């Protein structure tokens, strides 16, 4: 059960990260820079650096999540990134400035819909963190049990 739920969540989150990267990489990186700039939180150099690196990071993270490697650590990274996005979006939404979400390409205004969507993804990532930890503990316990059995048999 835990295995299946973890599989579903990591594939979902991985696909979302890959799609988010695709929508940014298929257009000029400067358009994504404009989305980041519309949050009015970062200096110019940080806007450009983030616009150049974040899509690649999202792509790598998405692929690794789908592949299911280092799940215990990568689920924490995914949750941390989504928590950061979510908190920035919440602050900006309540500040009331007209902002481009920048979530999946350009042109989507920050709205209640985008907040709910990001909140759901964050919940999914947090659940994946717990499931990955539980799975890891279960696997560890099973290995220990098997080792104990083997020693007893011997």
């Amino acid at each position, binding site marked *: 059960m835990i295995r299946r739920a973890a599989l579903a969540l990591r594939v979902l989150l991985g696909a979302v990260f890959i799609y988010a990267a695709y929508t940014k990489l298929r257009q000029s990186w400067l358009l994504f820079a404009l989305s980041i*700039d519309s949050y*009015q939180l970062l200096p110019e150099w940080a806007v450009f650096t983030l616009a150049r690196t974040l899509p690649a990071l999202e792509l790598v993270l998405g692929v690794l999540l789908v592949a299911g490697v280092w799940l215990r650590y990568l689920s924490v990274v995914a949750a941390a990134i989504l928590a950061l996005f979510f908190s920035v979006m919440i602050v900006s939404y309540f500040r009331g*400035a007209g902002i481009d979400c920048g979530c999946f390409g350009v042109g989507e205004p920050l709205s209640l819909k985008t907040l709910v969507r990001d909140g759901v993804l964050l919940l999914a990532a947090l659940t994946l963190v717990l499931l990955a930890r539980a799975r890891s503990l279960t696997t560890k316990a099973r290995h220990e049990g098997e080792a104990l059995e083997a020693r007893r048999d011997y």
Partner: protein
Amino acid sequence: MTVMRIRSFALVVLVLALGVAGSPAAQTKTTRAVGPVTAAVRIDLFSDFQCPACKALHEQTIKRVKEEFAQTGKIRLVHHDFPLPQHKYARPAAILAAAADRLGKYDAVADALFHQQESWGQSGNVDAVVDSVLTPEERKKLREIAKDPAILANIERDVQLGERMKVGSTPTMIVTHDGKPNPIVGVVSYPVFSKYLNTIVGP
């Protein structure tokens, strides 16, 4: 023979009329649209005079974009009114600004409306702000022009155009280059936006 003369005269008049319509002077009749129609990059700006983000975009970015890109012929910048329903005085402000455009005073009125947005946004006294940048004679003319139903019809047309272009909030700029529209939502700073424009307008 007389018929021939009349035809020739009509042809000359038509050619002259077309020439005047296509000249830069005719194109710059309105200051809501700046830059050549043939520019490779076109920006359609949807804005609301009562929205604080529109004020920030206008003051921090649009004025410089107009000077450095539109007035130099690199791009065409077109202002569209998109008064939001929650902004009670945005529509009257848009009407007065559109009327001021016919007097060649759009820039002065738009600047004043954005600059004093907080005060008239609360009091609703849009007229006082507009009057502050006009002469008594211009004020009189403006009141007459503002009654023209075509002014309101143009604003409605702008709103409908925005809805068709999927404008969901203000300010929104639709940057069209190579026939592809890219919506840019919210306040963007001049350094970042100009870097983007420089990459698409070319040398």
